[in-house]
């Protein structure tokens, strides 16, 4: 390929070599930045600037509708770490809810889609159909999924309990609510991770499987020593993205449980939204989002470190 291209270039260049003025310079010092510019503008305009502005907001007692927005320095942050303040109890309670959800949903969202991807990777009649079927729920909006599961999971008049013949409190009592929220999230988003895995599986060279078979590896050994190492970069991506997505869970508990029982399933993002957009206390809400964002950044860095170190060893 590259040889052909170079040959073509020399051929084109040969006739007008002396008059090289009108030719586009391919290695100008600004060129890469010019290519980056359009996205950079979007990034700065819609991510970086708002993020910086958000930090500025978090240093004020901010309500965008009130004329006075007193500067409070780091008081919003300090309040979050002061037991007994207006928000600290509720905020950390909501962080705990987010933590519980993440801890239970992430392993399932790593394992189940992997199993599905392995099955969908094999060739059998109707494979494309099943690939579409498993991805289908992901296309639905959370509002649709939420309303759907409210009818399925209602403790007294829901479809599921009607089949089971027993009133499990799927939407109103712990630990059942967590089973529901994790279960519906796995059902809903499994397809996305499965597609990423599937792409990863297709990248693993068939020769490796062939060689291992020749060496007498069992199916399990193949999975353990060929498939998993081959998927490591994909796994790291899936893990990071899944943790972040789970930690940002909002719609499911907002729609299906409304935070019940009490505020047990009110997640961090739900509490931030309630504080910032419901009560118009954007200063505290911005501080809370920054605390959440920093924690998630730390977790992500940890992920990458851990998985990379294993790759070295």
């Amino acid at each position, binding site marked *: 390929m590259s040889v052909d291209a170079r040959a073509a270039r020399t051929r084109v260049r040969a006739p007008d070599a002396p008059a090289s003025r009108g030719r586009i310079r391919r290695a100008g010092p600004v060129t890469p930045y010019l290519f980056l510019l359009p996205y950079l503008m979007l990034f700065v305009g819609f991510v970086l600037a708002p993020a910086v502005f958000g930090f500025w907001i978090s240093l004020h007692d901010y*309500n965008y509708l009130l004329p006075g927005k007193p500067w409070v320095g780091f008081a919003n942050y300090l309040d979050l770490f002061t037991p007994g303040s207006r928000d600290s109890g509720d905020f950390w309670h909501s962080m705990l809810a987010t933590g519980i959800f993440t801890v239970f949903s992430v392993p399932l969202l790593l394992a189940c889609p992997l199993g599905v991807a392995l099955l969908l990777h094999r060739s059998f009649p109707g494979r494309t159909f099943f690939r579409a079927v498993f991805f289908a729920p992901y296309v639905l909006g959370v509002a649709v999924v939420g309303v759907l599961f409210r009818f399925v999971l209602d403790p007294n008049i829901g479809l599921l309990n009607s089949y089971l013949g027993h009133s499990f409190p799927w939407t*109103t*009592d712990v630990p059942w609510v967590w089973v529901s929220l994790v279960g519906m999230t796995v059902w809903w988003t499994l397809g996305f991770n499965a597609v990423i895995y599937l792409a990863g599986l297709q990248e693993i060279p068939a020769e490796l499987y062939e060689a291992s078979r020749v060496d007498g590896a069992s199916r399990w050994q193949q999975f353990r020593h060929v498939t998993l190492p081959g998927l490591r970069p994909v796994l790291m991506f899936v893990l990071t993205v899944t943790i972040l*997505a789970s930690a940002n869970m909002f719609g499911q508990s907002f*729609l299906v449980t409304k935070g019940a029982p*009490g505020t047990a399933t009110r997640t961090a993002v739900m509490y931030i939204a309630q504080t910032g957009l419901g009560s118009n206390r954007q200063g505290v809400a911005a501080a809370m989002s*920054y605390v959440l964002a920093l924690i998630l950044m730390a977790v*992500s860095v940890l992920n990458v470190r851990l998985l990379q170190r294993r790759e070295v060893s």
Partner: protein
Amino acid sequence: MSGNHPSRSPMSRRGFLALSGGIGSAMALAACGGTKTPPSAPAGGNGGATYTGPKVTISFWNGFTGSDGATAKKMIDQFNAATPNIHVDMNVYQWADLFQKLPAAVQSGNGPDVAAMHLDDMPTQAAQQVIVPLDDVAAALGLKESDFSPAVWQGGLYKGKRYGIPIDVHNLGLYYNKTVMQQAGLDPDKPPQTKDDYMAALDALKGKGIQGSWVSPFQFTGGFMFESLLWQFGGDIFDSGVTKATWDSDAGVQALTWMVDLVKNGYSPHNVGQDADYIALKNGKNVFNWQGIWQVNDVSTLKTFEIGTAQLPKIGGNGGVWGNSHQFVLPRKTSTDANKSDASRYFINWFTKNAITWAQSAKVPARKDLADSPEFAAMTALKSFGEDVQYVHFPPSVPGIDDALTELYNGVNSAVLLKQEPAAALSAAASRASKIIQDNSKKYGA
């Protein structure tokens, strides 16, 4: 549910940057409008008694997503036909969305000309300069306090100025499934109105294996049921100056204990889900439901079961019924268009005069003379709600009061789901709410 369920646009899976960046940018955009504009009441001609200006189009935002939306549409069609020089464009949002969109729109100069909101939303929006005073409209309409229940009238006042023109009262009432009552050997024309009758009816139903009074743990409508009971037992949600929450009084504990006992003693199933109490009423599984007037048109469409409506039963010693009121407000405009502002006032004037048509959307007219009129008496399903208006307590008109009430609804939720004892749930919620009230009074300078 008449659009009374708050539902914000849900967030789906996003990266963490979207979290910090997204919320940040929403605020940045919202803040773009600047806040330097002083609140300006557009010049209002004769307060909307007549409109003589050129042809204008005005926009009207509200949260009438239920059968009330259809009635509002019908009335606006009538208005547009009768008033060739004013065209009203109506936008309907979920109430919760309305209170996020409206302030941002007003701030950026894109707010509507007229809006409707609840009694207890107005002080918050007035303090945030989202709405402007309309004393002139009240004067042009010749409205005075004696035309309304005092709470409906005074609720529209903030710092001595009038911000709301009352449209309706919507309160809680007793819905009962006549068909199931008859099957269980109860007289379907005599819904229970006292505590003894209520418990006797529930015992009779229990004997037939029916759990007759499902208790919802959610604001709609378990929270409203608790507030009604609290007033019936002689308590109140806040002290008289709204400086602290008082729902953890003896009356509150009695009220919540009575609700929780319905669950504990098998008159209600455990773990009632959102709206399940009402859906079960329509399915014939539940018999008595403390429900809002806004469902009257919905139950009237049922084929299998006949649902009746009655006044709330008196469980405590006093009359006590939760209620609220829709009122017209004028959003702040950054540019003053005298014609639009006159037209908006004329529209409010016209709508208020035709409020008896509005009652067909299942509401009690706010004006006493309309509520006592033969036209309203002819709407039989609404009659009991009208009779209960004398007992209605409204949420207090204090900025940011919704934040405090959220704590109450969370506390009721914990208790009805049997996660906390009623007294403990109420006092924990009350101390959090009291802190919020103090915060708010500092913030809004009350």
